[in-house]
């Protein structure tokens, strides 16, 4: 059961969350953070080592003991590790590092080597190094805060709300609320904030990296490319190989289908 400081303040049924979303969508990220940090006891910010550092800057001004966790996949850039340590010291955080299950990493690497994702796709590795440890961490929380924004990826994040029931990680016994206070901010606003408040940032941003993930799977992008284009660039065709879209459309447009409709 979710432990709220004020149990009446935030209800988690769909209608209440929709109403909360409508309310929060017009509020600044700082106001959203102030509300949710006050209401939830088991809540933490997920920090990726990139521009979501602005959330830490905002939250630390509200509650200096704010909980922050980072997934260490073991494959981050050296610059990201140095940046994470810099953030830890700058904000005097007890940053919680979350690691993958060593036995699973060991089995994967021993079976397939260090770069299996270039042949087999990234999901197997991401499942072991990111999603499993994230699920383990989130099972200890009632709510989490991410830096997800609508402008990061028009195909998958265009509708990111400020608040949502996290359907990926919630279970029947353990509902999990996800807050995305930057959902309605643009990249420009994020960087205006970073410059205005002299927030430390990952030096990889100066070299054209926008979204920063694991070192072998992240590359700099060109102006006006979408952030996700800097990840897993080698597998676009492979990723779609199980899709049925094209042929569904073709089947619906086939002479037999058209004849059947007329």
């Amino acid at each position: 059961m979710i432990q709220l400081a004020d149990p009446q303040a935030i209800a988690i049924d769909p209608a209440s969350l929709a109403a909360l979303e409508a309310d929060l969508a017009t509020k600044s990220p700082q106001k959203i953070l102030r509300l949710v940090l006050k209401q939830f006891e088991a809540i933490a910010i997920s920090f990726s080592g990139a521009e979501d550092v602005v959330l830490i800057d905002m939250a630390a001004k509200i509650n200096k003991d704010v909980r922050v966790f980072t997934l260490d996949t073991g494959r981050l850039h050296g610059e990201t590790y140095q940046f994470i340590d810099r953030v830890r010291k700058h904000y005097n955080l007890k940053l919680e590092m979350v690691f993958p299950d060593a036995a699973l990493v060991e089995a994967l690497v021993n079976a397939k080597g260090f770069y299996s994702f270039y042949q087999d796709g990234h999901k197997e590795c991401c499942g072991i190094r990111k999603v499993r440890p994230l699920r383990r961490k989130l099972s200890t929380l009632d709510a989490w805060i991410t830096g997800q924004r609508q402008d990061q990826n028009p195909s998958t994040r265009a509708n990111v709300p400020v608040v949502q029931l996290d359907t990926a990680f919630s279970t029947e016994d353990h509902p999990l609320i996800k807050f995305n206070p930057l959902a309605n901010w643009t990249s420009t606003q994020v960087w205006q904030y970073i410059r205005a408040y002299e927030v430390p940032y990952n030096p990889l941003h100066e070299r054209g990296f926008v979204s920063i993930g694991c070192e072998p799977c992240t590359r700099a992008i060109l102006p006006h490319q979408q952030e996700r284009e800097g990840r897993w660039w080698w597998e676009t065709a492979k990723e779609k190989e199980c899709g049925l879209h094209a042929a569904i459309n073709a089947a619906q447009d086939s002479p037999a289908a058209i004849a059947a409709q007329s």
Partner: protein
Amino acid sequence: MNIIVVQKIKRDGQPCAKSAKVLGDLNSRGLLPQIHRIVAADEGDPDSEGYELAAQFQVEAAPFFLVERDGGDIQVYEAYARFLKEVFQQEPSEAEEIAEMMAQNPDLDFI
């Protein structure tokens, strides 16, 4: 109960990666004999039965599962883990659960 598995066959004649993995898992669990038909969505033939079923049930990725209950109702399963649990009362492995989560939440890795 009548169970159909729809797999995608690529232009090279091979099943797509996920179809191959799921059918391999069904085989290793000894469940293949309980599948009544395996239908192909043949990339080289948009009119193949698998594509017709995908269009009929508005499914966008292979493999998927059609389960016809005794009353005649047909239930579509797009998630293999859920199919395993509800139809065969078998627990998927954590790896299968995670793979399913990532398939259903395509942005989960983008963290």
